[in-house]
């Protein structure tokens, strides 16, 4: 049962360095490509940026010069602002766009507009409710959820009670992780009972902390394991578990994504494992795929950028270190 999971994890690791696509033919003149993230300040987006610049370096080495423009919305997490950014680049007439849509519906029309203006768009990170894009390059969140579930099941020895605290209503990526976790529990760990899977944490750490406390006051005595579908829930749930004195491995917590605090918790043993994505690879593959498409090659409609499971045992391995601390300076320092 776990072989395919392991295989996927290994595949993810193999491609950590070198984003897995080889250089094709080079069509001489330079391309201008704009990369539009959801925001610009988060660590995650810096890694995407670094990945895009890495792609530029690799393409340059292959004889294809590419100009990368990095432009986030003026106000972060503002759909209207991101639409304006897309529109302004349509007006400017770039060769192609790599876009992380803030909303799976609001950005549909701008992407279609872009298509009608003959500017191909590669979607990264989050999905979009249309098929008028060139390719969708992102983490397989369902697989990530299954991976976390498999590890939790293994830690519990196939029996016990687990909790799932969902992230927020309407968030596509975390919903898939939650579904992946539940599917894994249902199919492969019939001895484990899911005590609660219908509670939502909400968008901020503060809300997540309150929701965690409420959930633990109800199930705190029976719970053996908890799955948290994103970074803010992981940190807040760990804190709430510490509050009731069950931290340090009495309750196994599997989290998603990393932050300074969740890594600290992982090291101290309060968190049993973290499922991590590979934003550097996502940024790199996004640009590579677009350039391949612009060069006239057929590209896959869906490209997976892989997930990996980090535990306190393997976190010091070089591969994992590169995932945890991507060499951003190497690219961002020398980039534009």
């Amino acid at each position, binding site marked *: 049962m776990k072989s395919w999971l392991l295989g996927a994890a290994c595949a993810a690791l193999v491609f950590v360095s070198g984003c897995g696509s080889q250089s094709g033919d080079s069509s001489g003149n330079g391309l201008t490509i704009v990369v539009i993230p959801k925001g610009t300040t988060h660590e995650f987006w810096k890694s995407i940026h670094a990945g895009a610049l890495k792609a530029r370096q690799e393409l340059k080495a292959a004889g294809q010069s590419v100009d990368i*423009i990095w*432009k*986030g919305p*003026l*106000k972060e*997490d*503002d*759909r*209207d602002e991101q*639409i*304006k*950014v897309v*529109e*302004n*680049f*349509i*007006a*400017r*007439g770039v060769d192609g766009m790599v876009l992380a849509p803030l*909303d799976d*519906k*609001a950005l*549909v*029309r*701008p992407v*279609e*507009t*872009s298509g*009608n*203006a003959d500017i191909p768009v590669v979607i990264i990170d989050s999905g979009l409710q249309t098929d008028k894009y060139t390719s969708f390059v992102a983490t397989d969140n369902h697989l990530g959820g299954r991976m976390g579930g498999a590890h939790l099941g293994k830690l519990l020895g196939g029996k016990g009670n687990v909790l799932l605290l969902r992230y*927020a*209503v*309407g968030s596509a990526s975390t919903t898939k992780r939650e579904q992946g976790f539940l599917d894994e529990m249902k199919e492969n760990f019939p001895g484990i009972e899911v005590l609660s899977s219908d509670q939502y944490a909400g968008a901020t750490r503060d809300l997540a902390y309150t929701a965690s406390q409420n959930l633990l006051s109800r199930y705190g005595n029976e719970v053996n394991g908890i799955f948290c579908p994103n970074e803010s829930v992981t940190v807040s749930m760990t804190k709430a578990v510490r509050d009731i004195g069950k931290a340090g491995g009495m309750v196994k917590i599997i989290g998603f994504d990393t932050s300074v605090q969740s890594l600290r918790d992982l090291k101290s043993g309060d968190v049993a494992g973290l499922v991590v994505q590979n934003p550097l690879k996502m940024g790199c593959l996004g640009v590579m795929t677009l350039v391949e498409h612009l060069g006239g090659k057929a590209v896959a409609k869906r490209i997976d950028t892989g997930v990996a499971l980090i535990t306190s045992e393997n976190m010091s391995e070089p591969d994992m270190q590169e995932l945890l601390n991507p060499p951003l300076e190497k690219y961002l320092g020398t980039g534009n």
Partner: protein
Amino acid sequence: MSLSTLFNRRINRLGSRDFLKAIRPFVGLFVVLLLFAMDAELRSLFFKGSNFKMILTQTVIVAIGAMGMTLVIVSGGIDLSAGSVVALCSVVTAKLIEQGHGFAVVLLLTVLAGGLVGLANGGIITAFRMMPFIVTLGMMGIARGISKWLANNQTVNPEQPLESVNSLMDNSQSPLTFSPLPDGVWLALGLAVLMAVVLRSTVFGRYVFAIGSNEDTARLCGIRVNFNKVVIYALAGAFFGLAGVMQFSRLTQGDPSVAIGLELQIIAAVVIGGASLSGGAGSIPGSVIGAFMMACLANGSGIKDWPNYMQEIIIGVVIILAVGMDKVEPFIQRLFKRQSSSN
């Protein structure tokens, strides 16, 4: 010198100052376009029909909001709840479409919802003699809260989209040509003409100026100040409601967290357009040009790939310049006068 010539001169002077003031936003826009035309990259990319269609579409929401805000500011008030009302009304639009209503009903009820919020603003301001700043600041939170409540803290996506509403701001089918302009742009242009006439040439319009110039005098002249103020805020709310419909059309979803800080953009457009925050001055064409100018600046900065912070700084400078001209112009005029009298 006879009394009549003195009087005439006075009228002339007043007239010329008013004229200068009225054309100032147009001059400002002209200067911006001129600066853009001097740049080779912008010349080829900015001055394209397709780009102007895009800018016009981006202007619609702020411009419609600015029409309502102009009424309020000319009457000596302020409405800080504009952005929240736009968000609330975008959610209301989504909810109405979800319930399967047609175009006319959706439009009317949404505008009405905005008008009701405005009515509450005006009612509280006049009934309790409270500062518009405080009341609308409170309403900003209330309307935002209600929109999140209505939307259950998430975006509202009608399962059966209403194409007529969605197409109000839709450019996706012809991104490379100037025509056809989306319906929303025509609607905004038509409303601008209508409101310019209302503010300049109707009794109500003159009352708005009278109240803004001097409320006590207006009251002594027999103007029903309180009644007119309530009407002004309600009308402004209705415009924010219409802007909410446009906001929905732009996102194709009702979003309770949209348009945060939009009220400041709207106020900036009105002020760039020559309105005075102490009341009694301002015009609809000026405000609409102000909104258009800000969209041009943002679009130009985008094309030039200036970083976001540069864009914010530039628009900030433009706002201060626009208002600062009030102080600079009399100085220049005096300079001219001295020259002509020495001749």
